[in-house]
């Protein structure tokens, strides 16, 4: 049975026009969005097979000849819907800067070194309870041109597919206690403090592996509430 997707859930998202983040000025709509009743097109979404996620795609530290430099970390959590139900078989894609705050992307000109042993991309599929796990290194903060002395807090980009095309989520996971939070217009584009806190991972001592890696927990909550019979 499909879920319904109350539009009110979207209130947690940032406004598309958030002037503090300058690039939104020319890329956000100015005309009213059209409100519509969801149809099967909106309520369904792509389904993946095991061919999409290979066995070691979740481990970003073993993709090259040697291990990447930086602080090895475990990032794990559950993908859930708004009723707290795990979302099984959800595709989770991740990409990030290296420990020095440099992306491998050709356009990134930050004068920090690339790491030949780190691409920074990973993929996982949640299990039957919605659980996922990545092994990676902690990304560095980096400067950007939005305003004078602008720096992004360390973050990991996440892309998640839920049950429907409209529950699709692209977000960023932050690390607890980052001193750059008050100054980052992307983070603060989410105006509700409680909603902002949901983008910050928790340090997870219980799953930190002794003598090996710190662990952070990042639960991801997707739209979707109240399973209802589908009208066709």
């Amino acid at each position, binding site marked *: *049975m499909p879920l319904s*997707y109350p539009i009110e859930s979207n209130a*947690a*998202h*940032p406004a*598309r026009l958030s002037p503090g*983040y300058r*690039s*939104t*000025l*020319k*890329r*956000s709509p*100015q*005309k009213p*969005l*059209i*409100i*519509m009743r*969801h*149809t*099967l*097109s*909106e309520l369904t*979404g*792509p*389904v993946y097979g095991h061919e999409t996620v290979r066995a070691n795609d979740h481990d970003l530290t073993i993709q*090259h000849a040697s291990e990447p430099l930086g602080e090895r970390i475990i990032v794990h959590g559950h993908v859930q819907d*708004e009723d707290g139900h795990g979302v099984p078989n959800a595709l989770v894609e991740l*990409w990030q*800067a290296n420990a020095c705050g440099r*992306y*491998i*992307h050709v*356009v990134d000109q930050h004068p920090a070194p690339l790491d030949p042993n780190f*691409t920074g*991309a990973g993929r996982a599929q949640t299990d039957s309870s919605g659980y996922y796990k990545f092994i990676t290194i902690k990304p560095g903060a980096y400067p950007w041109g939005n305003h004078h002395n602008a720096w992004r807090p360390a973050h990991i*980009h996440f*892309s998640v597919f839920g*049950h429907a*095309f*409209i529950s*699709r*989520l*692209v*977000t*960023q996971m932050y690390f607890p206690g980052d001193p750059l939070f008050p100054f980052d217009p*992307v983070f603060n*584009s*989410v105006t509700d403090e*409680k*909603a902002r806190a*949901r*983008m910050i991972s928790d340090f997870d001592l219980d799953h930190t592996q002794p003598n090996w890696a710190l662990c952070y927990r990042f639960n*991801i*909550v*997707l*739209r979707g509430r109240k399973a209802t019979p589908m*009208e*066709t």
Partner: protein
Amino acid sequence: MPGITPSQTVGPFFAYGLTPNGKYQWNDAFTSSLVKPETSGDRIRVEGFVYDGDGVPVPDSMLEIWQADAQGRFADAQDKRALPNTAFKGFGRCGTGPKGEFSFDTIKPGSVQHPDGTPQAPHILMAIFSRGMLLQNYTRIYFDDEAANAADPVLALVPADRRGTLIARRAQGTNGLVYRFDIRLQGEDETVFFDV
């Protein structure tokens, strides 16, 4: 009751993770081609450009499409009418190029019923992600050679003078049937986006 996780921008540097397309040491989970040799339906290409509010091409956006197969069925178990169709998954992804250009190779979708019982005209859903976009925009691609557009219940919600932004225009490309669909993120001819 937990609230949802807020959206954040895909940023400028997603390509190596989401649309590597042979340029990085990472494989593509998805491509802009939805068709296999055994896929049934009329082959089409949907192509166009993405522009910002100044009419400047957007070279760093990611487009995703989701659509029914030629019989109007979705490759998702939630579509209870659907028979398994392993030859068409209905999902594609494309990063825009230096001129803001994109293209998808797919098939013309069949009609999908609206919850009110009327048929919808054939359409493709599109989500647009980009640097400078904190949340994806959703739009729909319709086809200018479909008489069913006139009675489509979703198009009917759109002011008549803006409907044209949702309708791809048929053209004959060098490799078959092409529909041209440009996306304008802002401005006078701004593409219609849906609040879903």
